[in-house]
């Protein structure tokens, strides 16, 4: 009987064993990278908003405190999206002839809310609470980035669980003094390796922040 396979089939057979394994590992690696990349986390994405609101202008240039608009950030889970009336506190008089502002005025007159598009959307099984973070020295900037330099709001951090745990496992690397929570461009006055543990102690942060039930319940 004649040979069914040519001699080169030996090489092909060996190659396909390693090749098959390699392909699966490659897929595994690619999947791992992809789910952590901005493609999946939408890090750095600017969404199209109903009004082109600039945080850079309001926070960076004018110097308005975060809490002027996000009034519930210290007391509740949600930081609070300001009602149109908050915009009108100033814009009843400022830039009244702006085209962008027309939509705000329209919302004010009709009572129809502006439909902002959520930029930071955590999974529903994460019970995130703003107040516990800002009251224990986590700056807005730590999660939201340099909002004072963002003409349009974007997600500055991946907000993956892996990323949350970086701080939940080592809060001393990130905590700030309470009076610096709402500052941007903050640098620790003394070395963070000295200041961090002191602050963790004074905030009474205990070492079980990576228990599942801290965020998932």
């Amino acid at each position, binding site marked *: 009987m004649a040979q069914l396979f040519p001699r080169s089939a030996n090489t092909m057979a060996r190659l396909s064993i390693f090749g098959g394994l390699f392909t699966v590992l490659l897929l595994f690696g690619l999947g791992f990278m992809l789910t952590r990349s901005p493609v999946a986390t939408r890090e750095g994405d600017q969404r199209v908003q109903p009004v082109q609101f600039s945080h850079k202008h309001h926070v960076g240039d*004018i110097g308005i405190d975060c809490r002027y608009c996000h009034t519930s950030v210290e007391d509740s889970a949600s930081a609070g*999206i300001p009602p149109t009336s908050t915009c009108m506190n100033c814009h009843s008089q400022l830039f009244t002839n702006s085209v962008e502002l027309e939509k705000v005025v329209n919302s004010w007159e009709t009572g129809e809310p502006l439909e902002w598009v959520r930029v930071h959307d955590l999974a529903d099984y994460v019970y995130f609470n703003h107040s516990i973070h800002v009251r224990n020295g986590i700056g807005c900037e730590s999660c939201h980035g340099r909002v004072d330099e963002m003409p349009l709001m974007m997600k500055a951090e991946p907000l993956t669980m892996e990323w949350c745990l970086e701080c939940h496992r080592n809060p001393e690397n990130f905590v700030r003094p309470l009076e610096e929570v709402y500052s941007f461009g903050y640098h620790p006055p003394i070395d963070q390796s000295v200041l961090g543990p002191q602050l963790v102690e004074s905030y009474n942060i205990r070492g079980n922040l990576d228990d599942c039930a801290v965020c998932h319940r």
Partner: protein
Amino acid sequence: MSRSKWGARALLLLVALLLVTGCGQQMANQPRVAAYQESDFFDDGSGMRPVPPNTVPQMAGALQEDPVLYTGMTAPDAEGNAGFSQEFPYEMTMEDLERGHERYDIFCAPCHSLDGGGDGMVVRRGYIPAPSLVQQRLLEQPGAYFYNAITNGFGRMPSYAPQISVTDRWAIAAYVKVLQRSQNATPDDVPDGVEPEMKNAETAAETEE
């Protein structure tokens, strides 16, 4: 078990491992409404509901029975006259003043400026100039006058009641009185212990010149 079966199992395991690289799932968007989320359950498309008319919140002070605390005005006398309360509704502590300082810087300073002079950033951008809070005319006004202005608005200033709680408004009113005192202070007001520091500052200023 033959070697080929083990191979197939190993392959299957590797493919299954792909699933643990992490990905979005149905659980991430559950059929419940988060704060500010849209909902097609209600006609207006909003998940959060406006408070129905005539609702009384179930909390202490909801009936606002204390006129001084909630309006800054004294209860009307026999002739029906009410005026600004000359006293704060409760004693202001150092903690209240510090809270007032912080809240003033957040909510008032954009127009009234950090020192109360009225030259805030929003005014510089073209808002009708805010009056100086430390001028003579206002020095005579009690804290309740400022509480009332924050609560109901004053002239072109809108009401800040939706943004600032009752106790925070009183704390700000107390801090405005502090600003008035400090902005109109004379060297005699400086306590003895602080004097050397001030003199040093003066010398430093002269050296700079």
